């Protein structure tokens, strides 16, 4: 499956601080337009443009949130909250940063908050069902694609189990780099870590995954 957004160059100059003449990505251009409309007080028009922005980022957002939370309802809530926050705080968006980075940061913080809340809740509640049972799978396309076949295969299950065994920080970095298609520099901005730290976590995650799968 193709990525929802093209992967950016890994150099900081290209990814984090685009030159003024560099063309904005489609989502960043939409976000800048949205901000201008909100600042001008044209909120109705802004809401219409916001719908396009949601469409652009939604699929990527649910993939990230689901990797973090492993629960369809929590992921749904986290994605909704993140988009509502984007609209509410669009006036504080800085156009010199890629929108994807700003949005990912909001989404990841929301996911972490939800996870904390869930762990507090689970401390006092006995689990009624296993995590696998709580996932309500909705009908998918009748013709399974190659990714669905991979997911259903033994190797797919092994990979999913191995990824879920990664420590939290390594999984977060791995998810954003490999699943959301972000560069190390973008992940460092989204998670508030240095780029070197992101690379260390990513390397460790890959080494651990390989060790788990080669056992």
């Amino acid at each position, binding site marked *: *499956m193709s990525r929802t957004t093209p*992967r950016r160059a*890994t150099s900081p100059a290209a990814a984090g601080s685009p030159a003024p003449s560099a063309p904005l990505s489609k989502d960043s251009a939409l976000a800048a337009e949205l901000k201008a409309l909100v600042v001008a007080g044209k*909120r109705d028009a802004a*809401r219409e443009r*916001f*719908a396009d922005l*949601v*469409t652009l980022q*939604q*699929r990527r957002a*649910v*993939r990230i949130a*689901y*990797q973090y939370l492993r629960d*369809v309802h929590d*992921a*749904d809530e986290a*994605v*909704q909250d993140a*988009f*509502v926050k984007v*609209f*509410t705080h669009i006036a504080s968006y800085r156009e010199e940063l890629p929108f994807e980075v700003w949005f990912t940061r909001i989404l990841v913080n929301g996911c972490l908050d939800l996870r904390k809340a869930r762990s507090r809740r689970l401390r006092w509640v006995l689990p009624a069902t296993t995590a696998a049972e709580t*996932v*309500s*799978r*909705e*009908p*998918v396309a009748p013709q399974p*694609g*190659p*990714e*669905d076949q*991979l*997911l259903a295969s033994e*190797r*797919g299950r092994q*990979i*999913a189990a*191995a*990824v879920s065994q990664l420590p939290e920080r390594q999984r977060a970095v*791995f*998810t954003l*780099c*490999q*699943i959301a298609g972000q560069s*190390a520099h973008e992940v460092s901005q989204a998670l508030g870590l240095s780029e070197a730290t992101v690379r260390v976590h*990513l*390397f460790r995650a*890959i*080494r651990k*995954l*390989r060790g788990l*799968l080669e056992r």
Partner: protein
Amino acid sequence: MMRHPHLSDDRLIDVCLDRAPAAIERQHLERCHACEERRASLARLLADASNVARAEADAVFSPERLSRQHARILQRVEQEARLGRIISFPAGHGQGPSLLRVRPGMRWIASAAAAGLVIGLVAGHLVHDLPAGGALPASQAVGTPAGASLQAVATTMSEEEFLGRIEVAIEGTSGSALRPLHELTPLVWEIAAQ
């Protein structure tokens, strides 16, 4: 020509993560099947991990669910906008800070409320300090006027007993002045016998 050593795991990971190998590394990978196989295996692992993670999320977030989520997000944004809308105050009333302006009617209401409070407090204080009802303590009842004691006796004695006591009192020495009056008055039991 000097042979380049095998590429380390970290360098291979770097190569797989879009960091282009140096020219000498690229040449080594072209010649060394072991390193190329390690690189290909690592690249396959990364691709599979990405594909599995995406497939997992896509399996639970069907297009219908995404569509519902999209609508819900827009609905929530609409609600937020409605809640945050500020209604402008009519221009004619915008003379100054409204909290500091006092209307005459409000002043009267405030005065009446304060007066009612004071009266209520004073009345409550008085009621609390005075004894309740007309009942007096026993020590005060001993020295009361005769009317009060006769009334009390009349309620506790029968009529005949009361008259008998009067008779006894008249027959005493202190009642000699009343004897002529007694002789003129018929006795109760004589009338009853007739």
